[in-house]
């Protein structure tokens, strides 16, 4: 499979992806040297908004419904090493860029409440995290991707240990980093194997995604590389048996910043559809049953555990695990509906999963840990907060008209074509999702107020309302005007489908 590349200079006249990547770095440096504390927020906000504007320009200039890689920039490759600075977007990663930028803007908006002390470092770490995320999403070179994938750990570790809320946050951060490093070590081994294979095939080492697509991989090697890389992505996603770090990090970690990125940006499953499935189609086919089983298991397992959580942050961690299962089902169904649904669902989770973490953050700033024992009857005192939770949760449940419906149900449709049991399991999953979100709503927001609840609970403040409105807008936009989103991804997904289906 040969993908056509359209260079950024031809398409838009300036290297927009590099700009997206290095603008945050510039802002970080600026923040570091700013003397006046007052200027810290405005600079960071300006930087984040500029990123969002750039990302929107990128999204609107993107030509939908084709498989071409667009806005490509390439330097290198470095001789002997085969590593090149190769950026580009196609239908698979285009939507992640604006979502990342949007979440960053929202996190920066909220930063004034989230990190009153030492806001400068908080913002710097957040922007650094943002830059590594963007880098990982737009890299087309596997080693470059890997570098960003690992670099992301540095600001994460810093954010968890420095701004975490739990007593055990150090341990959680260590565990997070250990898991990620172990996974990425295996992944690197897989990447190198691919590069060596390319050398055997084309005479030189290359880690370039577009080059690697041309080099066929022997079936036996595919399986090994598939699993090496799978472990890296599975830990990150997280896929069912590798999820144990997640509830801890989300419960102990920072209230908003880090968690939003962790839940919202599905780098792990992105890796599946970006690298694993197109590069190793035979293995993907052979092990699809395993992936589907892991998806079903994670979906039901996470949902059942979420059912009994009393702490919103833990609940969301398991709900995220459950939703990851749905995405897996879509991706490994290998048909257009499934792939499209899975990808759309990843974007949706960027809004809903992350959005609920914002709600948890709002709650945290009012009542401490968002536990049911400290809640109840919030609707009387904070109707905005209640509405924000309800709307985002209903999108998570997959109500028609919200983005969740289209994603989840395309996945079910894709699953049905593989086996009816998958669709039934997905149906049970959505049912359980409704149960746990509404149960929490019933206990925490309606019901009778708990004894410890402050009599005067402030409703959402201006910035928080802004965040809620932005998220609600995105939910209904994706839900009611889905075609532009689906069109953006469909070209590349058809190409993926061909790569897998041709076998």
């Amino acid at each position: 499979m040969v993908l056509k590349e359209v260079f950024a200079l031809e398409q838009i006249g300036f290297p927009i992806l590099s700009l997206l990547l290095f603008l945050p770095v510039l802002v970080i440096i600026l923040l570091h040297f700013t003397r006046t504390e007052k200027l810290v927020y405005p600079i960071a906000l300006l930087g984040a908004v500029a990123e969002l504007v750039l990302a929107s320009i990128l999204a609107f200039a993107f030509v939908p419904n084709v498989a071409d890689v667009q806005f490509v920039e390439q330097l290198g490759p470095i001789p002997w090493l085969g590593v090149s600075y190769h950026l580009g977007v196609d239908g698979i990663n285009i939507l992640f860029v604006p979502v990342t930028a949007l979440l960053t803007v929202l996190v920066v908006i909220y930063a004034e409440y989230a990190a009153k002390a030492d806001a400068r470092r908080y913002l710097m770490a957040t922007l650094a995290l943002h830059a590594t995320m963007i880098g990982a999403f737009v890299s087309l070179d596997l080693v470059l991707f890997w570098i960003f994938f690992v670099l992301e750990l540095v600001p994460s570790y810093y954010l968890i240990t420095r701004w975490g809320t739990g007593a055990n946050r150090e341990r959680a951060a260590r565990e997070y980093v250990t898991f990620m490093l172990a996974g990425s070590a295996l992944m690197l081994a897989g990447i190198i194997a691919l590069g060596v294979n390319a050398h055997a095939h084309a005479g030189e080492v290359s880690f370039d995604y577009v080059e690697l697509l041309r080099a066929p991989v022997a079936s036996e090697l595919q399986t090994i590389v598939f699993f090496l890389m799978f472990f890296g992505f599975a830990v990150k996603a997280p896929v069912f048996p590798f999820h144990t770090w997640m509830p801890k990090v989300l419960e102990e970690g920072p209230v908003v910043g880090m968690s939003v990125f962790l839940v919202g940006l599905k780098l792990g499953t992105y890796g599946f559809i970006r690298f694993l499935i197109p590069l190793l189609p035979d293995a993907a086919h052979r092990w699809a049953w395993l992936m589907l089983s892991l998806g079903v298991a994670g979906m039901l397992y996470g949902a059942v555990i979420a059912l009994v959580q009393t702490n919103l942050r833990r609940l969301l961690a398991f709900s995220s695990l459950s939703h990851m299962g749905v995405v897996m089902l879509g991706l490994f169904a290998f048909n257009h509906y499934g792939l499209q649904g899975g990808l759309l669902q990843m974007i949706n989770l960027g809004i809903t999963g992350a959005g609920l973490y914002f709600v948890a953050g709002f709650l945290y700033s009012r009542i401490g840990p968002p536990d049911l024992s400290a809640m109840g009857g919030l609707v009387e005192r904070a109707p905005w907060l209640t509405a924000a939770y309800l709307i985002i949760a209903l999108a998570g449940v997959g109500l028609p008209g919200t983005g969740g419906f289209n994603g989840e149900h395309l996945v079910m449709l894709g699953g049905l074509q593989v086996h009816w049991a998958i669709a039934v399991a997905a149906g049970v999953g959505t049912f359980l999702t409704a149960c746990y979100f509404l149960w929490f709503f019933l206990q925490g927001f309606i019901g009778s107020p708990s004894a410890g609840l402050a009599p005067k609970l402030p409703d959402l403040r201006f910035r928080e309302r802004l965040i809620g409105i932005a998220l609600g807008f995105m939910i209904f936009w994706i839900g009611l005007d889905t075609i532009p989103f689906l069109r953006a991804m469909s070209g590349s997904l058809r190409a993926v489908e061909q790569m897998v289906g041709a076998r």
Partner: protein
Amino acid sequence: MFDIVVAAIPGLPLLAALANGVNGVLGERYPRALQVRVSSGAILLSFLGASWILVQVVLDPSPREVLIGRWFTSGDLAVNFGFLIDSLSAVMMLVTTSISFLIAVFSIDYMHNEKGFSRFFSVLPLFVAAMLVLVMGDNYVLLFLGWEAVGVCSYMLISFYQDRTAAAQAGTKAFVMNRIGDAGFLLGIFLLFANFGTTGYQDVFARVPDVDTGTATAIGLCLLLGAVGKSAQLPLATWLPRAMEGPTPSSALIHAATMVTAGVYMISRSQVLYDNAPDALLVVALVGAATAVYGGVVGLVQTDIKSVLAYSTTTQLGLMFLACGLGAYPIAIFHLAAHAFFKTYLFLTAPSILHHLHGGADVKESGPARQPVPALFTVALMASSGLVAIALLFRWWRSDMIGGAAGDSLSILLALGLIAAFSSAFAAARMAHVALQDTTHGGHHHGPSPIPMAVQLLGLLAALAAVGLAIGLLPGGAPGSWFQQFLAPAVATNPGIPPGSWVFALLLFGLLIVLIFSAWFTTLYVDRFRPEQPGLMFFRRRRLYNLVLNRFWLDELYGALVVRPVWKLGRALDSFDRNVIDWFAGAAPAPQKVRTAVETWEERLLASRAAGAIVAPSGDMAMPTSTWEEEERREKEAAEAETTGVIGWLTRTSADATGWVETEVERHSPGGGAGRLIGTVSGVSTWFEKAIIERSSDLVNHLAELVARISAAFERIVFQSGIHVELPRASSRFAGVLIRTEELLGKRLVIGLIVAAWLLALVAELLWS
């Protein structure tokens, strides 16, 4: 023009909902009068639009499609915002908008003291818009959009009184039970798409003859599951009575007149599909009949008027399903429309009845028994019974004249028409009865307001419907009535119904008679309002009475079978995660309490190992007298105790597992046979213990563990069958296994080992091949 009107019919209420919603969120900037005018005005306009559409459809009955926009496309799947206007949707639009308008007017008075006034008046038009999308959409996905949206509105209105926990619980229950049905509905839509390549009604129905009966049956059953959830049929019937927690106007609108009838609409809409799936249709009929009886019987013993009305709704919906199931779709739709008006009237007068019963002292003084049964009711009752007889006679006459199948099926259909007629007549009788009461107690009004204009208007409509019923429906059972002719392009009586058998017909009439009696008793019962004095012959039998009083224990059954096990499973799984946290924190999981013989034995085994570990280094000197066997045992044990890897874990696990089982067992059976059994088993295991420890070889040590586990499993089985099979316990055992698995998975070492083994196996497999 036509397109614009069609788009405006759901569009205007939606805009009104948005306007009122924004206003409410911003803190009620506009006065209430304006909010009311916005919402009821929008609904009035869409009512006028619907009437105009009805006229258009009467003039030209061919179905028309109106495309508003595209929603989403993926591969071959293309879903549009498109509306299908034919006689069926025209009738449904008219019913929805007219009743909604009346309710909106009624609510102005009813809700004027409530806190959530603006909330109510933004949800109400939203509901109307959603319901209109449901009945107007030209494809199943749009139907589903409306379907879910009315569900959300229903959720918001049931849990309207936010300070009442019961209301919130009822709302959640309704939503969740509906989700079960919705999962089936969705599966049905997917099956439709997989088999027909489209979800649009017209295309699907055109291609229905191409698929085999099995597929059509599967689709029909999946769709039926959705309808069962939405229309509160068995087995998902229990949410509807609880839904009466909402404000009365919304109960009238959503949980009696419109939303709950969506299932009937969907089945009638899919009639082509169901006609090709006779088995599915039979299930529809059975579900409807069972629900009708369930609702009728349980309704007998309810003690508050809204519950009575809710169960009466359940009954009526069951009858509509029965009609659909027997292929008499037009009758079901007619019944739907008639029922909507009657039931709305009953609901809106319910507050004043309540008021009379509770507020008027003279009701109690005069005593319930002396309240006369209104003459009109008796007449209606006699008329209904007479109709049954006529139907029977008619049936004989027809079969004599024509003979064979046609006569049979016709008589069944007639009987159905009669059921519909009867239920509406009953509703009319109830209405008359209430009206009588109103005149009797006219002087005792205490309430916030006399019966408002809207109700009187409704009364008029109800009377109209009664007239229509008397004239229109009786021939409506037979082909050729005006209503059937009007509906014919969209829905028609299924001609291919298999001929009814004697048994079936008799059952049907039996059902009818039961319903008549139950309705009669219900009426008496509500008049009396004395639950402890059931003058009902049926329920002298205490057990039956209890059974019915508890709604056949359906809620409890679901609780025991589904809710609690899942809950327990979740709790257990959750505790695993905390255990893993403990593991990382370095604290060992707390040891289980030990009480029973086997447990002690296990513990002793472990303790002896631990002791061995400590003693062993100096053991040679401390115990010179020990035999070589014992020494060897100590050494083995010491070595074993140091291996803290998988074996150590296994030991702990088995100890924990047995301990847990034993604690459970003891908790459930403090003595008697259970105790004796424990004694026996512990005796056996003691014997094992002696034999094993004396042998004291490594292999045997492991064997001991195995035996311990087997004995534990044996005990578990014995006790499960010995005491009673408890699903929740079984599930928490399953959870126990999962906990262990997860504990293992939580360890980095284990994960690493798994990954390594996985890769090794792969390499080995490759090398082998």
